[in-house]
């Protein structure tokens, strides 16, 4: 939701990034204020997921230009773990499986690490168990998930629910959810979206990276951005998503090129 006088959480200016020497982001601009929900859409290969990973600090991506400020501070000079502790959360498109580590152990380690990093109290295993079970209700998760290895043998929907559970535990200021809707059936999508909606408040912000408009029926964005060739070429309200659904992406690119010709 858009609030008057809300503070700027994320300011991305002319961001360029490369992977293996190939430029993927080519002048990305984005401003996100607290309370807002943004959707970044675009065709495959437009750079959406790269943008999400660059914000979280994935080592495979090299920032070659521009800046990213998070609450006014230079985000790019922070290591991934420091970004997490500062309040940036990336929900993974493909969450990693970690056989041999119980989910409860992983979740508590992540929670306590982030709590300690923020100067807040850590929880012992018993306290954490109560705490996490409460959060799991939000996502209609079976407590069995705690005893299983992290994401191992989880269905697509279970992995995404586990991602949102981590978001619920870590209480980020900025949550970037990368293709959180992919591979979900309608029931799972409803549950995941319901969880995200309950976590959204006036002090945090959510950036949804998605290929499909479907998710936006459940999580209503304040802004919809269309990415193409490594930058945002069009920004609109939630109605833009419906238009994209009906007309595809081609017209946006054509329009952007036409505008570019006019302006030069």
């Amino acid at each position, binding site marked *: 939701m858009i609030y008057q006088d809300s503070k700027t959480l994320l300011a991305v200016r002319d961001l360029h990034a490369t992977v293996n020497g190939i430029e993927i982001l080519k002048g990305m601009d984005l401003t996100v204020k607290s309370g807002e929900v943004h959707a970044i859409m675009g065709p495959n290969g437009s750079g959406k997921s790269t943008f999400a990973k660059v914000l979280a*600090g994935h080592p495979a991506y090299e920032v070659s230009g521009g800046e990213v400020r998070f609450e006014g501070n230079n985000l790019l000079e922070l290591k*991934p773990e420091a970004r997490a502790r500062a309040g940036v959360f990336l929900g*993974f498109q493909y969450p*990693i499986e970690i*056989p041999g580590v119980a989910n409860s152990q992983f979740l508590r380690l992540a929670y306590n690490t982030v709590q300690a990093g923020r100067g807040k109290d850590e929880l012992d295993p018993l306290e954490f168990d109560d705490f996490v079970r409460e959060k799991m209700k939000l996502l209609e998760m079976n407590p069995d998930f705690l005893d299983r290895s992290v994401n191992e043998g989880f269905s697509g929907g279970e992995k995404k629910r586990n991602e949102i559970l981590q978001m619920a535990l870590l209480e980020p200021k900025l949550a970037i959810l990368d293709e959180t809707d992919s591979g979900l059936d309608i029931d799972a999508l409803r549950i995941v979206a319901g969880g995200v909606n309950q976590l959204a408040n006036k002090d945090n912000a959510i950036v949804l990276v998605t290929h499909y408009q479907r998710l936006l029926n459940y999580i209503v964005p304040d802004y919809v951005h269309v990415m193409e060739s490594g930058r945002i070429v069009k920004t609109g309200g939630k109605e833009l998503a419906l238009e994209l659904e009906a007309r595809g992406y081609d017209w946006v690119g054509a329009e952007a090129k036409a505008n570019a010709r006019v302006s030069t």
Partner: protein
Amino acid sequence: MNTAATTSYLDSLLQGQPPASPLSWLNQLRANAVDRVGALTVPTTRDEDWRFTDISPLTKLSFQPAQGAAQLAAAQFEQWSIAEAAARLVFVDGIYAPQHSFNHAGFTVENLATGVAPHDTAVQAHLGRHAAFERNAFAALNTAFLHDGALIVVPRDMALAAPVHLLFIATRKHAASYPRCLVIAESGSAVTVVEDFVSLQNEAYFTNAVTEMALAGNAEVHHVRVQRDGAEAFHFANCAVSLAQASRYHSVSVALGARISRHNLNVLLAAEGAECSIDGLALIDGAQLADTHTLIDHALPQGVSRQLHKCIVDGAARAVFNGNIMVRAGAQRTDSSQSSRNLLLSGKARVDTKPQLEIFADDVKCAHGATVGQLDVDEVFYLKSRGLSDTAARNLLTYAFGAEVIERIPVASLRKRLEQAVMAQTQSAAPSAAGQT
């Protein structure tokens, strides 16, 4: 040539042999072994079987068997007790400690030195018959010192789920100990045996163990071997297992300790339809060297073998794995798979892995593979994106890599304790998960 020097080193180790047995065949066995010790030399890296394992640091020190058991308070080894154990034999510097041992197993679990006579025929049929010492200096040395040890005889159709715990405690600097273990599992029986090597001190000592297991038809043995010797220890072990028809042997070996360790495990599938799974984990750091040589010998048809061996190597440590799978002519319809997976955590860590398949039958299913790698970048990133420091993320993934083997230990309390030990060892570099950013 230093043959003379190394020969005399073995001779020097022969000092302090135990008293003669009243059993002439046993004395003869020991005498034969003494002869072989005299004829053999300490292996060097010029021997194919020891190519990657330089044990010359051993020969720079002298070791003597302990005379008389050190007195221990139970509290000193309580940390290693296994709650589920139905029987426990404790050996202190190789010497049987009856006051710390108990047996509620309902069958023979006793000191070999006194157990031989009542089980003369059975023991004579197996002792020294499986672990050949003609060409193996360490097996010969152990046999020359045959005295205290564990004798386990599981009667026909007797099945015990609770484990038998053999606890070998090192307490003295420069002590040599020669643990011996003989397990006779009669037909249809089932038993779980835990061999556990621990230390109360960190000076150099020499453990040279031999274990023999004979499984009769349809018997099942779970064998857990935990080597958590002191940091300066030298640990040599030869284990030989013989499987009769449709018997099943499952082993999990974990090597955490010792400066230099060498574990030979030979499993002979001597009859049709025998099965074995032998899994191993070496977790080493610093200047440690852990060498595992296994031989799975499919001698007759319809055998099944499964093997997963993992090494986690940090610092300037070195792991060696040589896994030989032999499928002899006539061992048709053998089904065998072997996997060697290795994780190198530092630039100086090294692993030499050599899976070997030798197949002389034509109707078999055999798969083997080896991987050597570092931690996956995406896995590390996933954990860091959840706030874990680089070190904490790497430690957790390293732990998980090792846990796959630990999880196969069928004794819950031991499994839990080893998980904690592996966790502690993989986190030694990072006292706190929160740590530095």
